[in-house]
């Protein structure tokens, strides 16, 4: 495994007048093919964003715009088809260069969304990681996370 990234977002942030729907944001973060694939579904938009963010984290760079630091958002192309369901990822430009320099020869994403929340786990690997063992490791890590008392905390809203 050469990189790991996780992102989670509320679907509401991509509907109506929310932040994820501003024209300046949409036109710079997403390409036309990506936006067309959503068919107006905010869950698809949210999933698309979490996949980009998770992959950028796996690359170790974070997301940026066309110029400047961070991998340009549109260099990580994510096509979401909720009807299939399927998700297709292609790395272009700086994202492809960064993946190659990090020794990543492949990757996988595991995504989930409903009307409320969307999340993606992205793994980059050197070609030696098979999907079954990657899934087993991820599932084991999540079970561990949710089951061990020492991993848990709770807090009241507004608590310092």
């Amino acid at each position: 495994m050469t990189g790991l990234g996780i992102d989670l977002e509320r679907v509401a942030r991509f509907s109506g007048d929310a932040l994820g729907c501003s024209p300046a944001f949409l036109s710079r973060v997403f390409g036309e093919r990506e936006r067309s694939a959503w068919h107006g579904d905010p869950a698809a938009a949210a999933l698309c964003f979490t996949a980009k963010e998770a992959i950028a984290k796996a690359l170790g760079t974070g997301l940026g715009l066309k110029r400047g630091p961070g991998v340009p958002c549109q260099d990580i192309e994510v096509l979401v088809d909720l009807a299939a369901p399927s998700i297709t990822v292609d790395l272009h430009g700086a994202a492809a260069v960064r993946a190659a320099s990090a020794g990543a020869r492949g990757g996988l994403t595991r995504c989930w969304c409903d009307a409320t929340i969307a999340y993606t786990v992205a793994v980059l690997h050197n070609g030696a990681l098979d999907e079954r063992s990657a899934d087993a490791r991820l599932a084991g890590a999540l079970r561990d996370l949710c089951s061990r008392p020492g991993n848990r905390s709770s807090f009241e809203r507004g608590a310092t």
Partner: protein
Amino acid sequence: MDRSAFVTKLCVALERPPGSLTERTPLHSESLDSIELLNVIALIDEETGLTVSGDDLKRCRSIGELLNFLEEQQTPREQTG
């Protein structure tokens, strides 16, 4: 650059109530999440043609400092008119 108009648009970009931000408002960019940060960077790109990074924003302690930074980055011919 119309500083007042930019602050108004920043309210929208950060989903703050209209008029709730001023040039003296502290800019805690490290507390912005990725969507908010990208929205701010996209707004700056749209309004000024400038690309700023998260580190650029961290160096600005207030919205006024951000505006000063942006005006310094703009070329002289872009500042007229």
